[in-house]
């Protein structure tokens, strides 16, 4: 039920946001939808604790909402309002929620793979058993960062789970056009790092695979590479004409839509009645509508915010002329 509710929230939030982008121009810049990949967020949430950090790339709406960054502050961020989760300074690609251990959406492909290992380093250093979930795409798997950080993380047994969300495309480039190695989880072999390949359309599969890796990391066993096979229904970003794949391919994946599958499980097993599902849907519609109202009514950041949040040092002498 939690899975269904969370995935619906992410999906409905993004559908609404995309409409506000396309129809009303209220949202600008790059906008990368998570639609189709929601089961990853759902499964990872139930396999972890609030103290565990999540860090990802620019396709960050789903994981931010999952961690508990509120729909209101996410929508306001998309609008560029002062009440956004990054005060309107980040936009779609750069959601943050440090209080709920969401360590951001990052724009430079591959960069957060290393930063995520750093979050894990800090936990190990402090002696906690918290772990870091570090998400990246199949395209990012080809960055040099991967080799350096896999090696470091394995050598130092950092409590990090490297999660490659393999949606088969990096913009218009399919996985097989970027490497001989199309099974990305095998890249762990070079470092003798444990690895797993998981069906990303199934919340159960994500949950189980993640739980194993999280347990190992908590117990000092070090990193795991998990390749999650998933699919993005939408283009790379809103402006992508998607000439590199067929409509049929997209439809095939939609047959295994994670939300429909979870719903089927719920209804087949009488975990909930249709009325209860309807009530959830209604609640989510209300949350999403409220987020729009909140964003619309929120103020813009004031112009003097330009020079704020640049240094922690409040007396920094900016050049203003």
């Amino acid at each position, binding site marked *: 039920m939690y899975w269904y509710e969370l995935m619906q929230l992410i999906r409905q939030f993004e559908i609404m946001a995309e409409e506000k982008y396309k129809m009303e121009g209220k949202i600008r810049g*790059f906008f990368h939808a998570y639609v189709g990949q929601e089961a990853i967020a759902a499964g990872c949430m139930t396999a972890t604790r609030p103290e565990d950090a999540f860090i990802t790339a620019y396709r960050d709406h789903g994981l931010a909402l999952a961690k508990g960054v509120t729909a209101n502050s996410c929508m306001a961020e998309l609008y*560029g309002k002062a009440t956004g989760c990054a005060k309107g300074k980040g936009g779609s*690609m750069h959601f943050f929620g440090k209080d709920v251990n969401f360590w951001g959406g990052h724009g*430079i492909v591959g960069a957060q793979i290393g930063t995520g290992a750093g979050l894990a380093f800090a936990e190990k250093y402090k002696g906690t058993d918290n772990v870091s979930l570090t998400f990246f795409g199949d395209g990012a798997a080809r960055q040099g960062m991967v080799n350096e950080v896999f090696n470091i993380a394995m050598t130092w047994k950092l409590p990090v789970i490297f999660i490659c969300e393999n949606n088969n495309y990096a913009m218009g*480039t399919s996985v097989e*056009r970027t490497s001989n190695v199309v099974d990305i989880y095998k890249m762990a072999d070079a470092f003798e790092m444990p690895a797993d390949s998981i069906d990303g359309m199934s919340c159960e599969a994500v949950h189980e695979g993640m739980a194993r890796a999280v347990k190992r990391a908590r117990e000092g066993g070090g990193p795991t590479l998990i390749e999650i096979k998933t699919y993005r229904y939408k283009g790379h970003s809103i402006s992508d004409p998607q000439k590199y794949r067929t409509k049929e391919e997209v439809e095939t994946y939609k047959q295994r839509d994670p939300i429909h599958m979870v719903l089927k499980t719920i209804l087949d097993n009488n975990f909930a009645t249709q009325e209860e599902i309807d009530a959830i849907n209604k609640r989510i519609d209300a949350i999403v509508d409220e987020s729009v109202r909140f964003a619309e009514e929120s103020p813009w950041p004031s112009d003097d915010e330009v*020079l704020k949040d*640049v240094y922690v040092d409040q007396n920094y002498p*900016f050049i203003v002329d």
Partner: protein
Amino acid sequence: MARIIAFREALREAMSEEMRRDDRVFLMGEEVAEYNGAYKVSQGMLDEFGAKRVIDTPISELGFTAVAVGAAQKGLRPIVEFMTWNFAVLALDQILNTASKMLAMSGGQVSCPIVFRGPNGSAGQLGAQHSTAFESYYANIPGLKVVSPSNGYDAKGLMKQAIRFEEDPIMFMESEVMYGDKSEVPDDEYYIPIGLADVKKQGRDVTIVSWNKMMKVAMGAATELEKEGISAEVIDLRSIRPLDWMTVLESVKKTNRLVIVEEQWPMCGVSSELAYRIQKEGFDYLDAPVRRITAADAPLHYAPNLVAAALPDVPRTVTLVKDVMYAKK
């Protein structure tokens, strides 16, 4: 005869013409081939030249830049497209420590004829990591040349020059928001030497210098000032390294005032260097301090009003010019 074409087509023509002439020239980068370019600069080039010469790379900036640099040293003439210059920083080691230094380190044996190109600077509300303007970073590096054109005509001539005649690494900076801009280009082949500024508008009272998309701000300000009886001369640097300060100096000798419009951050910017040069060589000609307008001293935030507040614009440029004119506002 002349034609009106978009900036992106001008670049495409430059690359295609030189690739037809010289089979050592090839194009490499992310999404340049099958996707026809993230910003469609290389549209159709895969069809014409094939996968051997229009090459899609993995997202591995350090790796493919290194491969291209090695290929250039060994006799090829690569064009490397960075999807944007923001991502080229991953390859900075190869550009700074290999491409720019190998001629010196090898005592003149190993040169690196290569063109690095891509969009630079801000392009609306893309957030901090997709909005940096990089001219001064690379302009600081001996061994490199840095070109940053403002229109398709210049872009084509400079790009052809870079590919065909330059034996040194060229950093070629474009802009997402200029790719659709139209300009007139002649049917006949032409080249524009690197290192020459262009006086875009003659004027008497003040010299405004800019380059790349900030030329629109400079020209817009000049138009506004004209209405108020102030005659601005506007210069497009086109090339940042080498820097054609002589053309600026000649103008300042006439106008006695200089305002620079720059999209980069203020500290150690191109305007800093130009201001130094002009005060040194033209001290006696200046009737007012050299002034500049740059981006705010901060990463570019996402919100539309913060973008507008951070970047140079026409009204603020007009005000600054009036300041150096000691005119009443």
